[in-house]
């Protein structure tokens, strides 16, 4: 199914017995196929805002529009079957096998057995689960595997919109990083519209195409792309929330291949260095196929940066080696240019 556009229109939630709204006139638009991260401290209403989309929490006023139709036009159960739903605790059904869990919504929609079985296999492969997990029970799986099953289950009927509430929150940092990368790779493939809730600004910056920062009382502080948010925080709250290291965070958003690298004079052993106008004043010795060997001055050609590295990691390695210039190599290990501390500075402007 095609990805859907999602629009919050002055969506407001005031819980019974409370005078303060949990979500306060929230208006924002998520273009089809993009990941919108709702991020904020606890009490900022981010989960409430997400749960109003599939009517797990009824709106007090305002509206949420999915592909041009108000979500309130539909019966809640019907609406929810068309919206993928993944939560932090995963909520797998302990009495059903992996296959049974993944098949939940297809069964509700009355798909025939053959179609369901084929879809289950397809989904397990999509989320990188071994085929032999299909007949296991949730208690036999690791935390990461359960999370993958949860995502597969949410994707079962190819919904145009996915709601994900801290889906990687209960996973240890190393596996969380891996699951985030997998999720982003998966999203490249499936291009769903995703509403993703997290309290972790780093996760928001990593996975979000757009980030909505909510503050206490469910007020939208800023809705922008990660780059925009880090470069131009709208107010002091956003500035504090993204952290004092926001310049460094911006460097995580750019890859070495995205910036204009400098050129250094290249020289083969025994040859004379070329003359001319180079960005880097120091000649670099390369071997026959063009792989950096050392600087002509004799210092080691380290660190070796790769085109796929993010600028932040490249900077960290350069600081580690106490160097201003670092050779950058492509996939074959051949010299692609030189990264300098000045380039980093320009990247932040």
């Amino acid at each position, binding site marked *: 199914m095609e990805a859907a556009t999602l629009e919050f229109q002055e969506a407001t939630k005031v819980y019974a017995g409370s005078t303060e709204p949990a979500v306060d006139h929230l208006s924002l638009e998520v273009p089809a196929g993009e990941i919108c991260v709702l991020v904020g401290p606890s009490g900022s209403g981010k989960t409430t805002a997400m749960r109003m989309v599939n009517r797990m929490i009824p709106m007090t006023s305002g509206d949420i529009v999915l592909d041009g139709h108000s979500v309130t036009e539909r019966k809640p159960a019907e609406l929810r079957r068309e919206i993928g739903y993944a939560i932090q605790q995963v909520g797998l059904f302990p009495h059903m096998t992996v296959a049974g869990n993944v098949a939940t919504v297809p069964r509700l929609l009355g798909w025939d057995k053959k179609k369901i079985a084929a879809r289950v296999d397809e989904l397990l492969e999509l989320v990188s689960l071994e085929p032999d997990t299909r007949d296991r029970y949730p208690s036999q799986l690791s935390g990461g595997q359960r999370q993958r099953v*949860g995502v597969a289950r949410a994707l079962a009927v190819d919904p145009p919109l996915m709601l994900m509430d801290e889906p990687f929150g209960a996973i240890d940092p190393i596996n969380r990083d891996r699951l985030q990368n997998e999720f982003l790779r998966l999203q490249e493939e499936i291009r769903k519209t995703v509403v993703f809730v997290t309290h972790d600004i780093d996760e928001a910056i990593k996975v979000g195409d757009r980030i909505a920062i909510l503050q206490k009382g469910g007020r939208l502080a800023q809705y922008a792309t990660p780059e925009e948010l880090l470069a131009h925080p709208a107010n002091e709250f956003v500035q504090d929330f993204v952290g004092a290291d926001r310049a460094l965070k911006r460097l995580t958003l750019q890859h070495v291949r995205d910036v204009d690298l400098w050129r250094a004079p290249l020289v083969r052993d025994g040859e004379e260095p070329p003359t001319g106008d180079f960005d880097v004043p120091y000649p670099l010795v390369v071997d026959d196929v063009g792989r950096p060997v050392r600087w002509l001055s004799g210092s080691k050609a380290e660190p070796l940066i790769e085109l796929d590295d993010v600028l932040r990691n490249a900077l960290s390695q350069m600081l580690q080696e106490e160097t201003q210039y670092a050779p950058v190599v492509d996939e074959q290990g051949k010299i692609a240019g030189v990264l300098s501390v000045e380039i980093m500075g320009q990247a932040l402007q």
Partner: protein
Amino acid sequence: MILAQVQIHNRAGQESCVADNGLCPDWIWDNFDRYVNPFWDHVYLTVVAVAIGFAISFALALVAYRRRWLIGPIVNVTAILYTIPSLALFFLLLPVTGRGNTTALIALVAYTLLIIFRNVLAGLDNVPEEAKDAGRGMGLTGGQLLWRIELPLAVPEIIAGLRVAATTTVGLATLAFFAGAGGLGEQIFSDINFKSNVVTAGGLCVLLAAALDLGLLLVQRAVTPWRRA
């Protein structure tokens, strides 16, 4: 009013084991037929009482699960029923329902209600919140959530309740003959001073209780494969 006919057996002149009121395998073997009908009466009383008790408690628990305010009153009423001494309950019912299975069953059912009700409710309450949330979030209706997710997950507690109810009922049903419903109790009291008789009838009660308990346990294991995974 005659509640039970207690026969005084004349055992004089019988073989020495019986005359000495010992535990006599030969006598038990020779007289085993007299236990067969009371045994099946006992099985009938127990199974029917637990089945009716289950139907009532299960329905009550489902209603109270969604309307929590009903839990207090239901527990109070069934707890009062549970604490009435069983003999007193038989005597109270006799003028109303007369002698026979009906009276016995009403009393036996009354004793199962509290146990089963509480276990069904506990089973439903112990269903993980996140499984319910995920179920609702994926579009299961209230009824689908109950029958596909909540009740299957409550099965272990529900069967645990049935096991307690079944074993208790086997014991209580030994008094059912006061209401004129027969059973192994009638056999016990018919010759309560004769060791072989008491041991045989009592032993059959224990066997019945153990068999029902084991049967329910096997049912539970069969329907909850995920618990052994």
